[in-house]
């Protein structure tokens, strides 16, 4: 259970025994601090699973689908900051991981993905369950290794962990042919590793930071845009200090939620397609935009020619290739967000007197932005008879105080969770932002719960995405993993329906999910408690019951089909074209 090995165990594992490739793999994973591997066995990984048999130190969680395993590893990684590990067999086992790999790649999540492959003598012969998974995943991995000799295994695994969780993080694939996992060789654990082509630069250039400090003090309407990089680098403290010192308002992207406490008065909410009025207007009006660890996704910028037109753009990113990729950037600072902000804060602290004057001059802007936030808040039409998903998210936020870890699937409920949830801390909002992967919401919560056994984990799903990985209910039941599974059940693919209604003149095409299972009975069939609510009073009661239940609970919140996510900016429009929705 414990990822931290005792000194004794460590010493025992470092011994130069003659052991199989599989045992080398398990030892190396344990020495890397892995506390749980999410996986699914198969022919090409039989030696590896055999080595696990009777190994008391090694923890493996058997999911019901490889996709569940990799999303769980992803949820573990996003919620803990540690590297998530999953394991699957060759061929179909490996290809079932592809969506999860792409999900992690798009959101820069550190994963080590281990696949078995057919024996080296069979590679390239189209043998049974053979797939070139390195080739298949090449555009969606940070790197991939095919291990050809058992002697190379320990070093390769160490390199994979190092690459996955440094620089711009991401998934690394390690493909292990069956004979390599069987071969018996002396175990040599490399204390150091050498990667001549990999030196992630994390320290910013001082001149760049000075230029950024100058730009801030020259601006009168500055705005911060904080993305997933703030969470990934652990830069929330530095960001809070910058905001505290300068009073610059801040908007956080979907992946940046929790990077700034939702209760902060200068936090404007999320920008973009379903962003707040204040955040989008501030982007339109600011004269300096400082992006920290965000990559100007099209869901944030909307049409680029209408994005932050009045602003000089400063971009802090650990990936130099992101700077200037989409938006012309006046000041680029390549480096780790926490280090950059620390250096920036120091540079500004040396100019405190100037800052005091500057705050006075930029005060009208800060006031204006705060006014927009209060005058045009997020809004929905509440109802006493019908259950509103926004109300449910507010209820969850109210009862958990922003301390729960919330995972989401993809669609309307994801946006409601982003808008009406309250995220006070980093790593408490986990969502597939870049790839938009349905089926992510539930298994990722299992991984988050494994990584955070003492915290409340809430998984928010729609009735569509819930059915993409519902088989993992078995895992929750068997191991009593106490995830609270929320299903917003509107019997339709809500976000697609919304687009069809607003953009395709209500020509609803293949979005009807009637005929889905009774989710309460589905949960019960697996041995998970199932509850249902169709109005406010029921919602309050069953949610309380769920919170008081020790084990996993699925709550089926029955909501209306025609509830829409607002505000909304249709694709192809600019930030100026917000539809605010009902009063």
């Amino acid at each position, binding site marked *: 259970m414990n990822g931290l090995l005792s000194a004794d165990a460590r010493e025992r594992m470092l011994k130069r025994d003659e052991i199989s490739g599989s045992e080398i793999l398990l030892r190396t994973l344990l020495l890397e601090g892995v506390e749980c591997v999410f996986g699914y066995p198969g022919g090409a990984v039989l030696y590896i699973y055999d080595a696990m048999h009777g190994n008391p130190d090694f923890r493996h969680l058997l999911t019901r689908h490889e996709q569940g395993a990799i999303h769980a590893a992803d949820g573990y990684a996003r919620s803990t900051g540690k590297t998530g590990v999953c394991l699957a067999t060759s061929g179909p086992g490996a290809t079932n991981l592809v969506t999860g790999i792409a999900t992690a790649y798009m959101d820069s999540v550190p994963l080590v993905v281990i696949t078995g492959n057919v024996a080296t003598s069979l590679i390239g012969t189209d043998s049974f369950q053979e797939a070139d998974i390195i080739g298949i995943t090449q555009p969606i991995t940070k*790197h991939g290794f095919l291990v050809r000799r058992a002697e190379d295994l320990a070093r390769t695994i160490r390199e994979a962990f190092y690459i996955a969780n440094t620089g*711009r993080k991401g998934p690394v694939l390690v493909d292990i042919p069956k004979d390599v996992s069987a071969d018996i060789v002396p175990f040599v654990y490399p204390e150091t590793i050498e990667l001549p082509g990999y030196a992630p630069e994390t320290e910013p250039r001082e001149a760049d930071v000075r230029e950024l400090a100058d730009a801030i003090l020259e601006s009168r309407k500055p705005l911060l845009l904080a993305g997933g990089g703030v969470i990934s680098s652990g830069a929330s403290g530095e960001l809070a200090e910058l905001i505290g010192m300068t009073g610059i308002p801040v908007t956080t992207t979907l992946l940046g939620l929790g990077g700034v406490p939702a209760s902060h008065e200068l936090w404007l909410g999320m920008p973009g397609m379903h962003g707040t009025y204040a955040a989008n207007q501030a982007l339109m009006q600011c004269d300096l935009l400082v992006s920290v660890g965000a990559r100007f996704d099209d869901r944030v910028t909307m049409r680029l020619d209408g994005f932050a037109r009045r602003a000089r753009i400063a971009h802090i990113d650990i990936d130099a*290739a992101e700077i*200037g990729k989409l938006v012309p950037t006046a000041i680029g600072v390549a480096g780790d967000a926490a280090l950059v902000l620390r250096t920036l804060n120091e540079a500004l602290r040396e100019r405190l007197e100037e800052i005091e004057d500057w705050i006075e001059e930029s005060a009208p802007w800060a006031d204006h932005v705060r006014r927009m936030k209060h005058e045009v808040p997020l809004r929905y039409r509440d109802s006493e008879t019908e259950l509103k998903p926004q109300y449910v998210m507010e209820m969850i936020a109210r009862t958990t105080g922003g301390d729960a870890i919330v995972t989401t699937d993809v669609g309307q409920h994801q946006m409601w969770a982003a808008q009406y949830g309250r995220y006070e801390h980093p790593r408490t909002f986990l969502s597939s932002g870049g790839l938009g992967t349905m089926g992510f919401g539930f298994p990722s919560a299992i991984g988050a719960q494994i990584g955070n056994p003492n915290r409340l984990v809430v998984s928010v799903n729609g009735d569509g995405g819930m059915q993409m990985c519902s088989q993992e209910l078995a895992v929750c039941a068997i191991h009593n993993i106490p995830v609270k599974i929320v299903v917003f059940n509107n019997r339709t693919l809500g976000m697609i329906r919304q687009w069809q209604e607003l953009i395709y003149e209500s020509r609803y095409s293949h979005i009807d999910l009637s005929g889905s299972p009774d989710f309460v009975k589905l949960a019960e069939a697996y041995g998970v408690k199932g509850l249902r609510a169709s109005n406010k009073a029921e919602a309050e009661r069953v949610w309380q019951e769920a919170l008081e239940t020790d084990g996993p609970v699925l709550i089926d919140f029955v909501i209306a089909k025609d509830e829409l996510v607002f505000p909304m900016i249709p694709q192809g429009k600019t930030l100026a074209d917000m539809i605010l929705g009902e009063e």
Partner: protein
Amino acid sequence: METKEYISVLVLDTPGVLQRVSGLFARRGYNIDSITVGSSEREGMSRMIVAARGDDRQIGQICSQLAKLIDVVAVIRLNERPAVARELMLIKLTITPEHRLEVQHLIDTFRCSIIDAGTNVLIVQVVGDKEKNDAFLQLVKSYGILEVTRTGETAMNRG
């Protein structure tokens, strides 16, 4: 402004490195004239020369994306300093006796060489930058080209 630039990419000799580099170009839709690859002066490392077209920002993007690949050790924009570039081209020409002299004249002017000659066929070797090779190819077109093979340009900085 769109220019042509040479990018020198030092890579580790690992299986799949060429695929990673070419996959990057395909995926991101970069405008590439040619890629050459061969061993370098350093053991275990190869050098690729990428001839790419784009404005300063686009070429910069290509270089930053290349530099991110784990097996890429160094990326250098050769055009930042004086550089030379050469391509090897082989052309198989059909040739009639009455044109032989004309063609020989062209070959001399362009400082090419004949590396194989049959009754009606010549293989001409041309070494030069891409533009020179293009020009030569244009000139001999009318004599009847059976086959052309080109290596793509390789390049290095002067001095």
